[in-house]
């Protein structure tokens, strides 16, 4: 991310953004890029309005034009009423929205977001998602990193799962789920009895803690089959999610 943002130098190879070389044309690239960093870096001593105005100066946006854009952006990120509030005293969700607004001051063609909704309450998170969807519709290219797989599934057209700097899979969220898990997951309690029953039927399953997960595209048939043949205490059928794929691919061990 930092290399695309023309901030970190390349170790080797070549990297271009919209056909421009990041090592030589960093000013041009950054002039049409918006960045939402993981850590808030608003100016705490400035009001909401002034934060946006000071940022517009870095892009050489003329004052009149900046004022027009700021009004529109305040409305877009729903902070018009907070325009004179010091950035330091905003809530977490408002700070995030202000940062998103600030990243849009130069009307970027490319918006880079690093964990845009980390630490936000569900309402604030949904507002940010709505805004990003709106921007996407308008044709802004959005590149984001996230650990919230629900967020990735909702927003991304193209998804890459990375682990230790390596790309593990790539595709649309639906493709990835279908390819690695199937449409559904059947979960049941892990007992010897059930394992014997499943082994007899040559079923593909995984043991996770005290649960057994069976991946399938035909949950109905398998469930009926299991109900008939094995004495099941409890059985849950649910849609497979990206989180299942992620855990399957990267393992369940804690990574620090």
């Amino acid at each position, binding site marked *: 991310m930092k290399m695309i943002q023309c901030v970190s130098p390349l170790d080797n190879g070549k990297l271009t953004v919209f056909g421009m070389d990041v090592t030589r044309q960093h000013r041009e690239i950054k002039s049409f890029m918006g960045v939402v960093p993981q850590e808030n*870096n608003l100016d705490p001593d400035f009001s909401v309005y002034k934060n946006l105005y000071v940022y517009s100066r870095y892009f*050489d946006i003329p004052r009149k034009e900046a004022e027009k854009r700021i009004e529109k952006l305040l409305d877009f990120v729903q902070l018009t009423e907070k325009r004179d509030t010091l950035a330091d005293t905003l809530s977490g969700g408002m700070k995030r929205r202000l940062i998103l607004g600030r990243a849009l001051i130069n009307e970027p063609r490319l918006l880079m977001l690093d964990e845009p909704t980390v630490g936000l309450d569900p309402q604030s998170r949904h507002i940010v998602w709505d805004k990003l969807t709106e921007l996407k519709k308008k044709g802004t290219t959005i590149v984001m990193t996230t650990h919230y797989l629900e967020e990735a599934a909702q927003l991304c057209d193209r998804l890459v799962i990375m682990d230790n700097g390596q790309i593990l899979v790539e595709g649309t969220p639906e493709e990835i789920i279908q390819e690695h898990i199937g449409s559904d997951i059947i979960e049941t309690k892990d007992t010897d009895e059930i394992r014997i029953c499943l082994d007899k039927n040559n079923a593909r399953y995984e043991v996770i803690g005290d649960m057994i997960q069976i991946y399938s595209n035909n949950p109905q048939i398998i469930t009926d089959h299991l109900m008939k043949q094995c004495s099941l205490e409890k059985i849950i059928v649910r849609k497979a999610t990206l989180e299942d794929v992620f855990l399957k691919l990267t393992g369940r061990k804690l990574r620090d």
Partner: protein
Amino acid sequence: MGYFSLPDITSKSFKVWLRNRDVFMSTFKVNFLPPLVEPILYLFALGFGLGNYISDIEGVSYAEFIAPALISVSLMYAAFYECTFGSYVRMYYQKTFDAIIATPLNIDEVIAGELLWGATRSVINSIIVLPVMAIFGLVVFPHSLLIIPFAFLGGMLFSCIAMCFTAVSSNINSLTYPSILFIMPMFLFSGTFFPLSLLPQGVQYFALATLPLAHIVIVIRSLTSGILDVSLLFSLVWLVVASALFFLLSINLMKKRLII
């Protein structure tokens, strides 16, 4: 990347200066208080209090002797603290530098803007202190007006030195080391409150070779007394060369710290 590589700087640095000015102006009342009150307190305690026991020093009253030192110290403090604690807070706690380098500005321009602002703080302080000294009749005009532009040069040097310390400090508390081991001794032994000539010859040379404040006091004392001498050129050249070197060093050290 060396320690004295030429930075890539455009007029965009001025945008960083503007940002710092705007923050300064939003709390200007409290910002004007220290440079106004501090020299007055020193002037009363040392100049008029202790000074009572000193009939004259190098041909002038003690208050007249320390007046240029108080101006020099004020401009030193302004720039040094702006570019140590001030810049450290912006760099590390507020992540202001990160926010700015996501725009068409690069890190060289951010640091240059910080240094320009630090020098400007010195100019502001000199503008505040000079009238105080004038009210007590301790400075000669119009020569003393030259102190204002000169404060920019002096402030630039202290900003650059301060930025070097900021670049190599692992945390904000370690900035106490240069404050107490560099700034404090310089405050006392740069010909500020007694003439350099009282020191042993070797120490005098050491002071002139290494202490920026010693040269700043020499220049400002000439301006407040209105007695200009060719030997001033040596101090001016020393200050310009040191500023240029520390300007390059501070930007390169900051780049080494921040670009990962």
